[in-house]
């Protein structure tokens, strides 16, 4: 899941990322040159990930869509600020993280309904369920319940732990890139991930 992106990012890693080693950088350079087709390619590639990241980080479908829209408008508006020395994914996730954290600071968000809240009725809008076509219905139900509880546990994490966990595990960023995105050291990333994983383990005790 996160492996392809991680592999892509690691392939692009090095002292100097160049357009030749990272196709996303090449696309962004084309965007800077005024190529709207390249912008659409970047959007198609990254928008689903950014939307899912925002959804899990802000916990609201509507706000996640607004944030995603803002992220990509900012990518275009500030395209001249991008420097190819930086990985495109890191730059993009930095914008997304800042907008999400700003969103989380807004007082009115506390009145919003938690997207991942457990519901009694059949869930049409909740998190998508893995193994929907599992052969064994009991196993499928258990997996769905685990996934739902896990989403709820992620939503309950403090924002920075949540962001670090999502960037690292869901979006496949290397620790160095997670640190760059959040403005912290790699050591701090390790500590955040340790605390986040332990918190999840405690909340999912029933499943483990």
């Amino acid at each position, binding site marked *: 899941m996160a492996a392809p992106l991680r592999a892509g990012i690691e392939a692009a890693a090095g002292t100097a990322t160049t357009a030749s080693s990272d196709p996303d950088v090449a696309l962004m350079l084309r965007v800077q040159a005024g190529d709207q087709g390249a912008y659409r390619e970047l959007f198609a590639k990254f928008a689903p990930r950014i939307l*899912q990241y925002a959804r899990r980080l802000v916990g609201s479908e509507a706000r996640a869509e607004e944030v995603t829209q803002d992220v990509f*408008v900012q990518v275009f508006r500030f395209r001249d600020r991008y420097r190819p020395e930086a990985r495109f994914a890191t730059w993009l996730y930095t914008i997304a993280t800042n907008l999400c954290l700003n969103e989380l600071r807004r007082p009115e968000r506390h009145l919003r309904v938690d997207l991942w809240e457990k519901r009694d009725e059949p869930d049409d809008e909740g998190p998508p369920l893995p*193994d929907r076509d599992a052969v064994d219905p009991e196993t499928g139900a258990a997996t769905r319940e685990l996934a739902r509880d*896990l989403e709820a546990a992620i939503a309950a994490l403090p924002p920075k732990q949540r962001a670090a966990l999502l960037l690292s595990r*869901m979006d496949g960023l290397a*620790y160095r890139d997670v640190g760059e995105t959040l403005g912290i050291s*790699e050591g701090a990333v*390790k500590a955040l991930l340790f605390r986040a994983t332990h918190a999840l383990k405690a909340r999912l005790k029933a499943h483990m």
Partner: protein
Amino acid sequence: MRCRTAQTWIVAARDGELGERQRRTLDRHLAECGACRAEQVSLEGVLTALDALEPAREVPARLEADVLRQVRGLAADGAAPTWTLPQWVRRGFPAIAATAVVALAVVGVRSSEVAMPDARTKTALAERPRVTAPATPAPAVAKAEAPVVARRAKVRAPAEPPAELASRPDLFVDLPMIRELEKMQHFDAIAAEDSDGGEAPSPNG
């Protein structure tokens, strides 16, 4: 190695984020510590569950359309954005420019009125009551105000107004423009005095 450090490293090791030396240290610790091995197993369960979560969902067509519409708008505006003025300034530029032109025109008209006052207006000022310092001012206040009063007294006293204006002071005496004119004349007088290097006369002449 302490168990706390080892448990911090378990997640990093799984992500391939540990150096070779750290990895060997962790492996040695896990071989000796049953509690940390148990921790590794339970964390592995959480990490596996995380890996099974859906990474991304399709973006609604409406969202994509909204973004592309905004981007086309920015491109049409020629937004190159890191150095341009904010959009509200750019959009309001015609109004700002028009306001500035009007303001400059008003200032210009008023300046020319002050620079070339009508002789009749000048003489009419003599009719207005003036604030003057008392002949023997109170010590504390007089010290502070004396220079100001002296400067005010530098204005040359106008001649008597023409009879036709003297008979109708209500036509002009209370006009704000004329009050401003009087102030400007005071300043002119001060400037002239400074450039001449002369002494200010006493308040009472």
